[in-house]
């Protein structure tokens, strides 16, 4: 076959592969790729890769390198590498996550090809013969794509996205799992080499693939179990939080009862003074009573009624915890949510982590300081949600170094917060953050578009 024909064929193959990769990314990351938001530079880079590798492939085919096992292995890993870059540019996920999906994609595609080629009519297809070439093209492109899509659909139905993101969180399992997966193409190649030396029958070709699919299923199952356990743990925590919520309601009710008792007495006193015509004392009484009410329960009623507007359970739990912590530490805190807050377009884990970092920073800054105050605000307006965390400033912060990994005003080993906050936000195209020092206060703001 001529060079340009092979190159063209490769390009068609590449287009099909990237299309399937795009879908795989959507299934695993559970989000849409940013096709329109792609910058010119990224686009050119992808185009370059798209043109270069099919041509390189064609060249290696022509030169006869294609017959070498080593070349095959290298080609496979190169493919995984540029697929990883493809995913990174289109999905903005972490590099390791992109690597993982890219590896799994390659293996799945390999498996799809294997399955599709097991339907071939002859053991060896000669590409110079038109009919056999057509069969080859059909098997490699169309049928493989069909098999691949079927596999992907299966994954999607099994809810692989959740399991994958959970796997990413579970550090040890991630490391070993991805190591084994990454080695798979190599092992497969070695096995095939052994097969071809031993001239084993065709049926054995697919053995590693089945082994692999089984181990994938096992990994999946283990992840699922771990996830269920964590879910149970989360439920237990949410129960605890609700418990705390109910207890604070009960405490408030107790205080109300107390207050009712007090004000009855106060009213009796006031009644006497009013009878005597002592207007000034009556006014003073009223003032005292309203102030007393404000001090005793007004603040609590307010916080709880604002909290009622937070409908997203994860965030509500986080806030309950943090507000309780601040109350315990004697930090004055104000929480506002004027409108109902239903949720934001960010994974709950990430959102809670971001908010946790912002609130922890504020708390650490003011803890034990005189006249300290923390304000938290959640506000949904015009299709975006704003989270604002504001605290009084008591020490000078180096505004520009604060984002560096490990920088902290609180001593060694504390400053990972803001850096990892930035890292999480880098994955979200629809989130914007800002920080400001304003009127002796430190203001951190996170906005998420719906």
């Amino acid at each position, binding site marked *: 076959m001529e060079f340009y024909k092979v190159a063209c064929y490769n390009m068609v193959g590449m287009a099909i592969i990237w299309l399937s990769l795009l879908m795989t990314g959507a299934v695993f990351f559970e989000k849409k790729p*940013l096709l329109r938001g792609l910058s010119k530079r990224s686009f050119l880079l992808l185009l370059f890769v798209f043109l270069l590798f099919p041509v390189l492939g064609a060249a290696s085919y022509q030169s006869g390198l294609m017959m070498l096992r080593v070349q095959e292995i290298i080609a496979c890993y190169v493919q995984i590498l540029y697929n990883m870059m493809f995913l990174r540019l289109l999905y903005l996920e972490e590099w390791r996550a992109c690597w993982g999906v890219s590896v799994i994609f390659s293996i799945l595609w390999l498996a799809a090809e294997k399955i599709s080629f097991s339907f071939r009519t002859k053991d060896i297809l000669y590409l110079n013969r038109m009919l056999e070439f057509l069969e080859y093209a059909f098997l490699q492109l169309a049928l493989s794509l069909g098999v691949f899509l079927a596999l992907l659909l299966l994954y999607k139905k099994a809810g692989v996205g959740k399991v994958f993101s959970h796997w990413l969180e579970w550090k040890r399992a991630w490391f070993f799992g991805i190591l084994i997966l990454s080695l798979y193409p190599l092992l497969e190649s070695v096995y095939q080499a052994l097969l071809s030396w031993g001239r084993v029958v065709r049926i054995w070709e697919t053995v590693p693939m089945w082994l692999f699919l089984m181990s994938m299923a096992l990994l999946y199952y283990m992840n699922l179990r771990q996830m269920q356990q964590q879910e149970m743990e989360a439920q237990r925590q949410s129960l605890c939080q609700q418990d705390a919520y109910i207890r604070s309601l009960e405490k408030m009710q107790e205080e109300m009862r107390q207050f009712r008792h007090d004000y009855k007495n106060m009213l009796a006193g006031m009644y006497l003074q009013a009878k005597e015509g002592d207007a000034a004392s009556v006014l003073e009484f009223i*003032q005292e009573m309203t102030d007393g009410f404000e001090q005793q329960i007004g*603040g609590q009623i307010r916080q709880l009624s604002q909290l009622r507007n937070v409908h997203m359970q994860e965030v509500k739990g986080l806030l309950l915890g943090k507000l309780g912590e601040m109350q315990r530490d004697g930090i004055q805190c104000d929480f506002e949510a004027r409108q109902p807050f239903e949720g934001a377009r960010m994974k709950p884990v990430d959102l809670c982590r971001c908010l946790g970092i912002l609130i922890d920073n504020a708390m650490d800054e003011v803890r034990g300081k005189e006249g300290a105050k923390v304000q938290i605000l959640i506000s949904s307006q*015009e299709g975006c949600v*704003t989270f604002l965390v504001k605290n009084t400033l008591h020490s000078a912060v180096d505004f520009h170094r604060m984002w560096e990994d490990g920088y902290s005003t609180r001593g060694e080993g504390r400053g990972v917060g803001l850096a990892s906050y930035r890292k999480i936000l880098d994955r979200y195209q629809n989130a914007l953050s*800002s920080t400001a020092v304003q009127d002796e206060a430190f203001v951190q703001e996170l906005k998420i578009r719906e």
Partner: protein
Amino acid sequence: MLPVYICEDDEAVRAAQEEFLRKLILMEGYDMELVLCTGHPEDVLLAAERHPKRGVYFLDVELKGEQMDGFLLGKRLRALDPRGFLIYVTAFSDLAFETFRYHLEALDYIVKGDPEQMKQGMRQGLATVVERMKREKGEERAYFSVKVMDVVKHIPIDEIMFFETSGRTHRIELHGVHDRIDFIGSM
């Protein structure tokens, strides 16, 4: 002359506010004029639209039985009068005022339960307005304005150190002396 508006649904409170403001403006010799006292937010919007001028607005937060509450009225007013002064009046001392300040750049809020306290609040409010205007006159600063989703931020140009494009597409980071702001744009 700065027009002053009152929007308050309780007639008695409104009358008290009107009387007090007239006296106060006269006594202090402020360059202001009370132009409208009403219980309907639509009237305020209409008047502000007809006379597009920076004004002072005393707005009831609750506004019972009306189409919009004080917050929404404030939003509409901001569209008509971006530099006006919004002062909120509420029956509850526990108003979620940070939200008002954040979205509407509201100046202050007054609790109307105690008449004396309310008057004190109004006096304080006008004093702040006068002080702000004086301060603005003194400084001639150029601002860089940027829309970040639903709010517009103004940063003094002399406080901006540099802009930086970030790894994410169409994303620019502004680094100022006191600010660091992400926004969508291109350079």
